[in-house]
C-alpha cells in the first residue's frame, strides 16, 4: 500500500500536514504525537523581524469552530533558523516554512535567508486576514498575487506554495494567477473573515474586531474551493479547512487535494494528525486502494 504523495518534486510519506499557525514548529504537539509520522510540519508564519501580534482577546469560540486574530506573532527569521529548524530536523518529516510579511521586500528577505536552510518547501502567507498591512492585501487581487508570486519565485531556492484566501469572489482566478506566476503549488483555504459580538457587554469578542474563522463549520466551503481550484490549475493543491477526521481528509483528497492539513482541530484533539494518518490507511485497506494517488481528484462526476 502506497501512501506517499509528491508535490513539486518533494516526496511526502503521507499527505497529512499541519495547518500553519496551529502547530507552532511542532515542539508543543510533539509531546502528544510522533512527528515522524506526519507527512510534513508546516510552521507558524515567520517574518523578517519579530512581530508582537494583536492585543488580546485574540481567540473566541463560535458554533462549530473558532475565530482567531493572533496577528502573526512570531520571533522573526533569525531565531527561527537557530531554534525551530534544528528542532524539526531531528524528525523524519518534511519541513514547510510559512512566510509572512508586510511588504514584498519583507517576504523576499525571509525567502532569501531560508535559501540555504534545510527546509523542503516554502508556503507564502498572502491570506492572513488579521494584519492590517501586507499579507492579505497580496492575496485578494489577482494582479497583486501574480506580482508577489513572481518576485518570490525569482529568489526562492525551495519550491513555493502560495496559500490562498477564501475571502475572494472567484478562487479559480486566484489559483490561476499563482500558477501563471510560477507557483509550484497552492494551499487553501486560509480562514474566513468573521466577527462575533458579546451581546451582554455589547463589545466585540476579539480586540481586533474581526478574526479568521476555522474549524469543522468551514469544511464544506473549503472542500468546494479545493475542488474548484484543483480543476482550474495543473499545479498540486494542498487542502485544508475544518479537517477533523480521516473521513474529512479523504473528502479533500477526492475533491482534488494532493496534501491535506489539519489546523484548528489540533486544539480540540491534539492527536488528530496521527489519527488521520492511521484512518486514511484504514480506509485504503477497507476499499483495497493500493495507491493513495488513486484517491486524488477521485470524486465521480
Amino acid at each position: 500500500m502506497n501512501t506517499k504523495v509528491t508535490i513539486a518534486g518533494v516526496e511526502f510519506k503521507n499527505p497529512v500536514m499541519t495547518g500553519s499557525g496551529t502547530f507552532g514548529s511542532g515542539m508543543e504537539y510533539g509531546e502528544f504525537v510522533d512527528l515522524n509520522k506526519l507527512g510534513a510540519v508546516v510552521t507558524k508564519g515567520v517574518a523578517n523581524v519579530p512581530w508582537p501580534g494583536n492585543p488580546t482577546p485574540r481567540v473566541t469560540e463560535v458554533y462549530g469552530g473558532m475565530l482567531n486574530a493572533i496577528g502573526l506573532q512570531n520571533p522573526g527569521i533569525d531565531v527561527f533558523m537557530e531554534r525551530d529548524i534544528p528542532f524539526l530536523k531531528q524528525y523524519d518529516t518534511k519541513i514547510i516554512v510559512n512566510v509572512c510579511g508586510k511588504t514584498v521586500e519583507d517576504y523576499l528577505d525571509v525567502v532569501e535567508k531560508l535559501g540555504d536552510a534545510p527546509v523542503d518547501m516554502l508556503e507564502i502567507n498572502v491570506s492572513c486576514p488579521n494584519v492590517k498591512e501586507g499579507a492579505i492585501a497580496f492575496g485578494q487581487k489577482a494582479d497583486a498575487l501574480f506580482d508577489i508570486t513572481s518576485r518570490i519565485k525569482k529568489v526562492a531556492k525551495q519550491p513555493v506554495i502560495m496559500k490562498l484566501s477564501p475571502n475572494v469572489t472567484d478562487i479559480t482566478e486566484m489559483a490561476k494567477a499563482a500558477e501563471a506566476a510560477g507557483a509550484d503549488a497552492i494551499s487553501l483555504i486560509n480562514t474566513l473573515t468573521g466577527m462575533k459580538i458579546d451581546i451582554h457587554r455589547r463589545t466585540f469578542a476579539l480586540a481586533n474586531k474581526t478574526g479568521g474563522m476555522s474549524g469543522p463549520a468551514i469544511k464544506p466551503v473549503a472542500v468546494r474551493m479545493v475542488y474548484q481550484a484543483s480543476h482550474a490549475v495543473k499545479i498540486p493543491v494542498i487542502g485544508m479547512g475544518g479537517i477533523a477526521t480521516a473521513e474529512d481528509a479523504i473528502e479533500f483528497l477526492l475533491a482534488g487535494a494532493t496534501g491535506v492539513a489539519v489546523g484548528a482541530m489540533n486544539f480540540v484533539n491534539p492527536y488528530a494528525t496521527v489519527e488521520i494518518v492511521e484512518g486514511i490507511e484504514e480506509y485504503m485497506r477497507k476499499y483495497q486502494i493500493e495507491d493513495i494517488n488513486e484517491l486524488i481528484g477521485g470524486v465521480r462526476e
Partner: protein
Amino acid sequence: MKQKMTAKVYSQTEIAPGIFDMWIETPLADEAAAGQFIGVYPKDKSTLLPRPISICEVNKKDGMLRIVYRVAGKGTGEFATYHEGDMVEILGVLGNGFPVAEGTGKKVVLMGGGIGIPPMVELAKELCESGVSPVAVVGYRDNKLFLKEDLAQFAKVYVATEDGSEGTKGNVLTAMDENDIQADIIMACGPMPMLRGIKKYSEEKGIKAYISLEERMACGVGACLGCVCKTKKVDHHSHVNNARICTDGPVFDAEDVEI
C-alpha cells in the same frame, strides 16, 4: 507528560449559586500541583475548545482532581449537568503552578477573589505540607462564602465581601489594611482589577507577588499564541514582549508582567 484523556466524574455538587464543585478520577492527579489547570472538553460538538479550569485540590492517593468553577456559558453549563459516573474528556496537566518552595520561612499571604479562590485551597495545603502556615485573604461578592471552610483547614482566613455582608466590606486589599496583615510574599488569583491592585500594592510595599492570570485560550499547550500577556522584558520564547499564559504561566512574578 501532557495528555488528553477520558476521566470519570467522582462527584459534583453546587456549592454556591452557579458555582460547581467536581471531583474527577484521573491519573493526571499524579503530576498536578497548586496553580496548574486542566482543559475540560464539552461533549456538545458545537463547542469544541477545551475550557481552562484551575485545579482546586489534588488527591494523589486516590488519583483525583477537584475543580471548582462558575457556570459562565454553554461549555461550563454542560459540565454543571454531569453526575457521578459520567465520563469527561480532559487535557492536562497545564501551566506552571505557584512556586510553593519560595514560601519557606516566610509570611505567605494568599489572595483569592471570586472564582480565583479555588486554586488557593491546594496552594494552602501544599504550603502547610511544606511547613508554612499561610494566611488567606479571600474576596467574595456576598455572603456565599464557598471554599472558606476548606481553606480554613490549612490557613488563617480573612474574608472581604463587596456588599459587606461578611468580614471586611471591600476587597482583599481593604481586608489586608483593616486586619493589619503583614506579608513577605503574596500569591494570588482573581479578576484582573484585583490583580492590578495587588501588583501595585506589592510594588509599593516591596513585597514579592505571584499572580495567576487568565485569558481566552484555544489550545492550552502553547501552540496557538492566543492567550498572551504583555511582559516587561522580551520573552525567551516569543522574542517579543509577550508570554504565553497557558505555558509560561498562568502564574507570573507580578513584576514581570504588564497588566
